[in-house]
């Protein structure tokens, strides 16, 4: 076969030689992804079609039972329980992300407007939660939401909860915990964009009669979109799968898909069903990314 010689960055070479060299550079990465992402995922795909034995062992029988069960079909008829948990997870994840966005903009603008000397201190305050275990951070809310502290007392005063009870377990406590845990994941990438913002564009928009909304949409949002996108991915994806926060602050009534999966691999010892739920979660996550991509043009991670 005739090889076309091409000039590549001042070097005479052939397409095949270039491809070979490129593949050798990529090989270590491909190996890593294959060994630790593709293969385990494939095992899960296979596992999700297997069956649970009486003692919790895996029986390699191909069936769609796990997916049927997830969709709510059981021998006792149809129940929406699992679908409700999945739906609730999506809502919690979206609300957490949205509230984090709304909080992150004022927060990052505040930090970026501090004098350079003090900015570091504010950033450290924002970063410290990263170094703290999520369980410890969540436990901290036990204390803060306990019956004797002002938060619970105020809620009692307003008549939301009976006298002498704490603010957890509740959906409210889950949201508080989720937002406080995941806010830094959104605020930090956003800050990197806000810090580099060209304020002349904001002034230009003001000079051109733009309303506050228009200034934000045309001068601030396009400039902060890269950081915001990374932040949204870093919040949306883990909040979908989280189980620590709802486990501790939500109680048995407020189960999310993360808890459901944890249960299958833990107490229920039903790995095939757990794998099926994981597949569903992965599909949901990819779907939400896909929707976000369509809305926000491109996802620039780097």
């Amino acid at each position, binding site marked *: 076969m005739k090889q076309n010689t091409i000039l590549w960055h001042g070097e005479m070479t052939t397409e095949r030689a270039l491809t070979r060299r490129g593949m050798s550079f990529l090989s270590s990465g491909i190996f890593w992804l294959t060994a630790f992402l593709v293969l385990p995922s494939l095992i899960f795909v296979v596992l999700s079609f297997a069956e649970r034995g009486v003692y919790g062992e895996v029986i390699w029988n191909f069936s769609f039972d796990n997916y049927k069960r997830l969709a709510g079909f059981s021998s006792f008829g149809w129940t929406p329980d699992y679908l409700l948990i999945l739906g609730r997870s999506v809502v919690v994840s979206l609300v957490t992300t949205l509230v984090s966005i709304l909080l992150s903009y004022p927060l990052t603008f505040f930090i970026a407007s501090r004098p350079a000397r003090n900015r570091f201190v504010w950033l450290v305050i924002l970063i410290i939660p990263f170094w703290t275990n999520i369980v410890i951070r969540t436990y901290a809310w036990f204390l803060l939401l306990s019956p004797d502290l002002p938060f619970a007392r105020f809620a009692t005063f307003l008549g939301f909860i009976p006298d002498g009870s704490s603010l957890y377990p509740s959906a409210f406590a889950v949201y508080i915990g989720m937002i406080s845990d995941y806010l830094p994941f959104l605020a930090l990438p956003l800050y990197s964009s806000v810090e580099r913002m*060209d304020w*002349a*564009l904001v*002034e*230009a*928009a*003001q*000079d*051109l*009669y*733009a*309303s506050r909304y*228009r200034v934000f949409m*045309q*001068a601030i949002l*396009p400039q902060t979109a890269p950081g915001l996108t990374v932040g949204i991915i870093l919040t949306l994806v883990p909040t979908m799968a989280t189980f620590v926060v709802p486990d501790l602050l939500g109680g048995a009534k407020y189960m999310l898909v993360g808890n459901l999966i944890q249960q299958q691999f833990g107490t229920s010892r039903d790995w095939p069903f757990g794998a099926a739920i994981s597949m569903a979660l992965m599909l949901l996550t990819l779907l939400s990314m896909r929707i976000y991509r369509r809305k926000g043009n491109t996802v620039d991670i780097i």
Partner: protein
Amino acid sequence: MNDQPQKNLIIRDITKSFGSVTALKRVDLEVRQGEFFTLLGPSGCGKTTLLRIIAGLEQPSSGAIILTGKDITALPATKRNVNTVFQSYALFPHLSIFENVAFGLRSRKFPEQEVRKKVSDTLELLEMYPMRNRSPEQLSGGQKQRVAIARALVNEPDILLLDEPMSALDAKLRAQVQEELRRLQRRLGTTFILVTHDQAEALVCSDRIAVIEAGEVVQCGTPLEVYDFPRNRFVAEFLGAANLLQARRVNGGVETEVGFLSLNKQPEWPEGLVAIRPEWIRVGSEPSVNGVHATVQDIVYRGTNFDLTMSPGALRVRTNAFKNFKIGDQVWLELPPAELVVLEG
């Protein structure tokens, strides 16, 4: 006097402090309608701050801005009929050239048809219509500047503010753009206020120039007035390179390092400075009024002229390019009394 309200701008007693730093000290200026007005000064003199105060992007510490008889000091930038061409041009990178220019009209919710017409006309005026679908990053510096000017002018502002618009352009393009800007201003009759640190640019473009030093207006007048009759040492040195001579008042003139010089106007000070531009010193072979016998110390050929350095006094002299001098030539210099400017103490 006409009875119509003048669309002029009055800057009344404006002071601006940032913490302990005073950027502007009691600035009083009046800019007439249809005038090309320039704020000239070195970097950090406060000229950009003054421009931002006029635009409404900065609030003065005290004083008032009066436009067309109305006090607009408290109005935010969005409510002022004043538009700015920013130093970095500040074009919106995610919008096309057309949409960039349409921005101000869309903010004010003009009907689509009117937006199309006005934007097309303005782009046409600045010869940027063929580029309307491009994005800002696809344009050169000079083209970006045209778009920035179009984006401001399409709003038909009472005043167009230009914040060092040439600083990003190379020297040759700059000279061309300066002339174009001047022509554009004459054609539209809009009041332009230009901020620059380039004295040549100020002289080329302006109807009037305000020279600013350390937050204060030192001198305000036509380019001719400011250049030929600098009020003090700062203006004389900032615009062109005048010869400054230490002088002591004597009967009928002053005694200086180059000898006695007669003046048309007696100075008020006993000792001070007199200035003369290098191009006004005549070179001859005979002694004359205010004649100084001098030796050529150094010669620089500049194409259009020679710059000579003379002793005594290290006088700088500019002659036309036809005369030939050698270092060491003995000549007689004439410093005409009409061209000798007495500087304020």
